[in-house]
């Protein structure tokens, strides 16, 4: 799984004349089918959400979103996703570094395990994390005496968000570190930079755009995450209730308008945040001239 394919995948291609390209058949059929399928499965249904919420009007949407319970849920979803993505940005980069630069026993096994959150169904991850971090769990029993309660608290939501987002950062940073030219580090060292200076001024700027990309992807995934969160969250209204769960609760009450308003808020907020992070990424690339 490569989360960066479209973000940065401008593969250099040999220029061909359009006349030679048109020899290949099937343009109308494949493009037509692609557009039809895309419209039927994704675009029209998604447009339906916006159409439905347009019917509510801005005041209508705001009236639903500004209730304390919805605000608390949105705050938790976005806050926990941000914290989780930040933890992943730090540890994911460290893990990518360790796997690219060092050798140690069991490396291949652990490298394969990193993709577990992509492959393990979220509901399974949810109940497993809950069992692990509950008061009597393998990890929870050591945290509880320290006064740290993870399961059934907002902290549990952060743990789930971290779990789900980890591979995005590692898999985005890893190839960039691999391609980074060690000659630059040698040059820096030979010019008198110590190791710390080389890391912060040579290596970090090179990988920063990749870290930000991974951060954005991990965040986007975590903010809408449902399966792995609801088991460990405890789902207390106002405390540990996430926004996607609130959508489901409203749907079960046949409150379609309320569910749509929350969904619209989530869609708009996450599109907006992704825009911001994309801009940050473009800035980092310009500023440091590092390879994406």
């Amino acid at each position: 799984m490569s989360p960066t394919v479209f973000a940065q995948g401008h593969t250099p291609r040999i220029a061909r004349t359009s006349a030679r390209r048109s020899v290949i058949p099937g343009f109308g059929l494949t493009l037509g089918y692609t557009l039809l399928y895309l419209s039927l499965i994704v675009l029209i249904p998604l447009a339906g959400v916006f159409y439905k919420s347009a019917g509510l009007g801005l005041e209508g949407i705001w009236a639903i979103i500004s209730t304390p319970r919805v605000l608390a849920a949105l705050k938790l979803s976005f806050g926990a996703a941000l914290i989780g993505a930040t933890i992943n940005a730090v540890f994911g980069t460290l893990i990518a570094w360790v796997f690219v630069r060092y050798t140690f026993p069991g490396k291949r096994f652990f490298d394969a395990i990193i993709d577990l959150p992509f492959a393990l169904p979220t509901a399974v991850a949810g109940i497993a994390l809950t069992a692990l971090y509950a008061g009597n769990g393998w990890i929870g029993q050591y945290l509880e005496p320290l006064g740290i309660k993870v399961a059934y608290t907002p902290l549990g939501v952060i743990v789930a968000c971290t779990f789900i987002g980890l591979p995005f950062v590692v898999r985005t940073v890893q190839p960039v570190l691999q391609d980074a030219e060690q000659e630059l580090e040698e040059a820096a060292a030979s010019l008198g930079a110590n190791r710390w200076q080389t890391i912060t001024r040579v290596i970090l700027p090179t990988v920063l755009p990749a870290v930000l990309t991974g951060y954005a992807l991990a965040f986007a995934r975590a903010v809408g995450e449902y399966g792995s969160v609801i088991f460990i969250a405890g789902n207390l209204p106002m405390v540990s209730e996430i926004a996607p769960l609130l959508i489901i609760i409203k749907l079960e009450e046949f409150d379609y308008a309320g569910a749509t308003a929350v969904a619209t808020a989530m869609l708009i907020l996450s599109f907006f945040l992704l825009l911001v992070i994309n801009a940050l990424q473009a800035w980092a690339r310009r500023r440091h001239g590092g390879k994406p």
Partner: protein
Amino acid sequence: MNTVSDGLPQSPPPSPPGIQHHPAPLIERNSAITEPAWVRWSLILVALLFLLGFLLLPLVTVFVEALRNGWSAYLAALTEPDALAAIRLTLLTAAIAVTANLIFGLAAAWAIAKFEFRGKSLLITLIDLPFSVSPVVAGLIYILIFGAHGWAGPWLMDHGIKVAFAVPGIVLATIFVTFPFIARELIPLMQEQGTEYEQAALSLGASGWQTFWHVTLPNIRWGLLYGVLLCNARAMGEFGAVSVISGHIRGQTNTMPLHVEILYNEYQFSAAFAVASLLALLALLTLGVKAWLEWRHADQLAATRRH
């Protein structure tokens, strides 16, 4: 010492005059681009502890909890009728969703990789869109259309077609969340391969279909398998979207992940973990095949992941 230039990544800078050269012994020169052993091993330790706590232990927990009440309880949980129905529905849903997205992925990759047209990058972005939509919202959009109070729901129900709270809805929601997997794997791969082989085949008199079957498909088969693998893992494990639209009717609209949730909420923990362990085995199998593909056929996987 503090004049290491910010411009370093772009070009080898001219030697700034202020830098002092420290003639260092050989061993230290070797360590100029690596860290002291204790730093290395502490970093490795931190990384592995993180992976242990967040990834490995949850995985082990699934199997330990599943076998807590012994093998017979484990097998009983897997062979009771509701569990079997859930397994059947999951297999059926994944088969349909993967096939649908496979056909779409091939068509989209063919159109995007082999031709130039306006709006291509927008199209690629739109194909990626389902990844940035919460699974719950993905379920919601189909409820708005096909639900009892939806736009098309009442009309379809009058004609005897049930989509929401039935298998078609589950399949639709699964197709939505797994939508980009195969396309995003094939597009960069086929873009990189260009059109030379196809042009050669066509100029030698092959038809379009023959070219596709005998030239294009063999060239992308491992990348295709990779996409199918990831698509299938997500399709079988999808929870949020399916949870919204399934209605949780036992034995009828319950997929394996939903069955896990129901058992868990009924405090049948070891039964829940038993069904979950099947899904965890699927995840392990997926990871295994994926690692093998990355190791053995790296040249045929999408360019950006090659490392």
